[in-house]
């Protein structure tokens, strides 16, 4: 049946969306590709399994805790790694390389702390599935759909209704004017890293029970980047739509086309988009 994989694809897509939102937030605010975003997600997944399996924290409580941890992680990365580099007015290439360094650092620290074997989450979902209009939605897909959806909606409200959210958007759009209006740009950047960290953490906590948690999970972050490109780099709606779309494409791609070249095909599509329609679906190219 076509609908079962579709629901799975959308569910995974919601998780990609959360990671992609993190990418796009940072790209929009500082034109920086945060290579370590996937690793933040990875730390989230591993922290989650420690909380749930080790400390017996109920899963639904673990999710916001993981988000908090990853928000702090994002903050730490900015404070200790990226900010010093930005303040020294070095070429952009240096900052990108620094994020690569951060991703290597996080991957290996994770391996040190959690070991090199993938860790399975204890069963956090029941086996009863939600049946809606004849559609059978297993709990493990329901969670990313519902929680992911709530987070995305919450983020929209945050950016459109809250003072900090609006200030962040202002700072991203026109740094100098925002500064003149009294907005503390450094603080906005900090918030950006914290919020995108939280999104990544949520993604990790949601992904863990579906597959497993491992220090190599950061690679999934790169796939989310393809999703972000698809939706339009720097665009919030783009990240949401791009993530879900990519989740669907990937699921059906693995079903219908060879799965060995699955990743390669994803990247080929991304390169094609960058060349032909670089703004993706929703993005706006800043250069005339």
């Amino acid at each position, binding site marked *: 049946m076509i609908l079962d994989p579709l629901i799975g694809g959308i569910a995974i897509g919601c998780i990609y969306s959360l990671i992609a939102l993190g990418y796009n937030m940072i790209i929009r605010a500082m*034109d920086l590709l945060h290579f370590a975003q996937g690793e933040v997600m990875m730390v989230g997944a591993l922290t989650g399994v420690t909380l749930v399996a080790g400390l017996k924290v109920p899963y639904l409580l673990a999710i916001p805790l993981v988000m908090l941890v990853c928000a702090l992680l994002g903050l730490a990365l900015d404070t200790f790694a990226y900010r010093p580099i930005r303040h020294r007015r070095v070429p952009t290439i240096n900052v990108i*390389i620094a994020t690569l360094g951060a991703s290597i650092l996080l991957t290996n620290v994770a391996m040190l702390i959690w070991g090199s074997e993938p860790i399975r989450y204890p069963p956090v979902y029941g086996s009863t599935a939600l049946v809606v209009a004849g559609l059978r939605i297993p709990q493990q897909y329901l969670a990313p759909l519902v929680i992911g959806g709530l987070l995305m909606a919450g983020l929209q409200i945050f950016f459109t209704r809250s003072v900090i959210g609006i200030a962040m958007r202002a700072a991203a759009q026109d740094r100098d004017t925002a500064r003149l209006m009294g907005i503390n740009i450094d603080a906005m950047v900090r918030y950006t890293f914290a919020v995108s960290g939280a999104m990544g953490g949520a993604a990790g906590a949601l992904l863990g029970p579906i597959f497993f948690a491992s220090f190599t999970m950061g690679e999934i972050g790169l796939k989310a980047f393809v999703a972000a490109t698809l939706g339009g780099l720097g665009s919030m709606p783009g990240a949401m739509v791009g993530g879900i779309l990519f989740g669907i494409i990937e699921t059906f791609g693995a079903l219908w086309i060879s799965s060995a070249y699955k990743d390669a095909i994803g990247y080929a599509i991304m390169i094609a988009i960058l060349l032909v329609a670089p703004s993706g679906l929703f993005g706006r190219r800043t250069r005339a």
Partner: protein
Amino acid sequence: MGGRRSALGWVVLGIAVLVLPWILPQRYFLRVVDLALIYGTLALGLQLLVGWAGQLSIGHAAFYGTGAYTSAILTTKLGVPVEAAFVGGGLVASLLALTLMPITRLRGNELAVATLGFGVIIHAVILNEEWLTEGPFGMMRIPPLRVGPLLLNTEFRFYYAALAVTAITYFAFRRLTRSRFGRALEAIRQNEEAARTCGINPVVYKSKVFVIAAFTAGLAGSLFAHLNGYLNPNDFTFVESINVLMMVVVGGLHSLGGAVVGAVLLVFASEYLRALREYRMIVFGAVLILLMALGGEGVRAVPRLLLAAARQVFRAARHRWAPPPGDG
């Protein structure tokens, strides 16, 4: 004068480098040196790409692997003489680089990810096309390098071939960067829009640098194939691309000599710090971040900073222990 001193420096370096295998003939050591030279060539190409053309390419392993596998396939499956296969590795890699011409239009982030994707695609081909590359089993019994009748089947003999390749690459790039071509690259790197209004077409120049960098990477790959005798797809992944980038960064962006120094440092650190497996990569990651904070000069910044730090300490100590005159 400075000129005389640097010429003397080159002579000393040249002699040291030529007699090295005679002084330290241990096989393991020479093998590490051989690897360092191969990576030196690799890093030089990437340095031209990143430090001069400003193209953050994180898929360089694709060219490296293409060269290695091309040379291996030509010699083991098609019976092509090693000397020709060696050059063939470079040529095929540079042909592959031509396909990247469209992406040179992209800027910063987008270019980086496009090269990442390119690396993944090439790796997927190497891994899956078993009829061509033996896939995950790897290619075996790759013949050693030879120069005419002379078989370079020891680390000692191989050293001189690798040294020649690295040295020629270095001096060729030196000439290139000091020419009209190099000046155009600098102009593009420093202010691309202004360069265009001076008649320079950035796409053409960036593409040419990709081809040149790919050629040297392909040669490096061929060298590796014939040194190792065995190839595995796992050696040519994104991780490897980052390795080479780290060498360029450690040596300092925009420095040809730095690329070689970075390669030597990292290869030796990798080999001799093997015991510290996990910690090694953590240190690398941290060092990468630190070096970027220092402004991209790489390890060259270290002596300068140490000197500055020493001066600070000295000044503070002097102030502490020798009270200023007119006191009390």
